[in-house]
């Protein structure tokens, strides 16, 4: 018992010798605590989350589902509207195509129909290209229509015409090729230059008696010559700055 008392006395004497004293240290800590900055006030969202408590995840899941559903519905609506528009375009374009193909159609009617087709923009490229396969007034009018269309949508026209020229399934006769080549030059399809240069090589090979697998028909020497001249003209046009 006496030993414990001795040890307590020893500790108290040690504490009494501390500088600063325990009392002073406590006073400093309390003062520092009083001077510390207050935590920032919580935001509305945080307060809302805090208010919602355990219901917050369910609420967030519902909101995400709503947004996703709305987005999907919007895309579907857009796709349906696009389909409806294309259907309407097809019906309207069919009328113009029938005017172009009518047995007694005169030049003015055919050219006017081709211009009206061109006004439909990108959806009219394929019908016009198909018309360009014809000889006679229809083909010439379709070529004119494609060039007008290139004024408003050169990227689409150049892309399709370039691919048409690369096509090796004999989809077009030589007159169709002539129209495509000329349209590429007139429409400023500068990206088509490498294709035209390769096409020029293929024409040279065909003119020299090589296999002419380019056309649906067999052009005479004069047809090949016209094509070669037109390729050169188009390349010259596209070389201009």
């Amino acid at each position: 018992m006496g030993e414990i008392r001795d040890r307590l006395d020893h500790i108290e004497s040690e504490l009494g010798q501390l500088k600063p004293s325990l009392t002073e240290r406590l006073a400093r800590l309390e003062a520092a605590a009083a001077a510390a900055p207050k935590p920032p006030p919580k935001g509305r969202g945080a307060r809302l989350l805090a208010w919602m408590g355990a219901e917050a995840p369910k609420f967030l899941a519902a909101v995400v589902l709503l947004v996703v559903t709305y987005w999907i519905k919007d895309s579907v609506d857009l796709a349906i509207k696009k389909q409806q528009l294309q259907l309407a375009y097809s019906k309207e374009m069919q009328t113009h195509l029938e005017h172009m193909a009518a047995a007694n159609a005169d030049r003015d009617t055919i050219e006017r129909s081709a211009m009206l087709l061109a006004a439909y923009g990108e959806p009219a490229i394929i019908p016009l290209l198909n018309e360009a396969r014809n000889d006679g007034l229809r083909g010439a009018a379709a070529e004119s229509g494609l060039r007008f269309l290139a004024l408003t949508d050169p990227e689409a026209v150049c892309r399709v015409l370039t691919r048409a020229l690369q096509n090796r399934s004999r989809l077009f006769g030589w007159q169709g090729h002539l129209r495509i080549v000329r349209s590429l030059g007139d429409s400023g399809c500068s990206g088509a230059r490498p294709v035209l240069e390769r096409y020029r090589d293929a024409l040279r090979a065909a003119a020299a008696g090589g296999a002419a697998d380019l056309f649906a028909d067999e052009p005479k020497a004069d047809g090949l010559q016209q094509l070669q001249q037109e390729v050169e003209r188009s390349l010259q046009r596209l070389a201009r700055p």
Partner: protein
Amino acid sequence: MTGPRTIALAGACWMFALPAAATILNCRTAGQDGYTVILSEPDATPAAFKDAPEMRRAMNALQFVLDQGRDGQWLQPSNGAVNFVFCEGQRPVLDGREFDKTLVETLYNQSVLIEMWGSVDAEVAGGVRSRASAQINFLLVPVRFAANQRETALGGLLRLTYPEAGAPPTGDFVELLARPQDLDGFVAAALGYKALREGSFDLALGNLCRSAGLIARVEARLTGGRAKAEAAALRQFVVEAAGRALAAAKGDHRFQHGPLMLLDAADPCRGSAAGGGP
């Protein structure tokens, strides 16, 4: 006595005589399988034809005679015959301004050799038509195409009047227009020049030389003026083209052992099978 019926009839006649709005149609052609001469509807006075159906009957008869009822004097190509086609409803204006570069290229690539159009008139005595007359335009499509390519200064358009001087008068338009050999000369010229561009040099030479002789007769018949000068220029053009055809043939291995090698390049039509020259 002027009744309503007379007025209506006169009105109908007046309307038919009016120059119709120019119309160019997508006429049927032989395409790659032959060559085509297109006959368009002429502008007609009421004395020439009382109505459009009568005119069309006459044009169909003319087409038949030209296509089936006579032998043309041109050398027939082996790759397809020359066909005459009446293009019902097509009526170009007299000066031919519709035949622009695009249309001419289209026609050329459809192997159209000649477009024929014009105007017709007649005298009527006792209800019978007599003294039919016509002014006919001949557009030689290959020559006009070459002009558009800046290969020649010749326009390829000839305007001739019929009946030709000294010919007996007739009231029959088929007889009036099918009889002259002018058309044969123009077909031979157009076919020859087209064949030259297509690399058929023997066909080209034969037809060009033959046309030179036929056109020389047209030139001799004409008394003067623009038509005579145009015929002379065309004859000179076909002779030059014949020289080009012979020169091209001499440089082409396909003709190295043929009779063309014997001809003189300085006078290509002398000694050719077709003859030629005035």
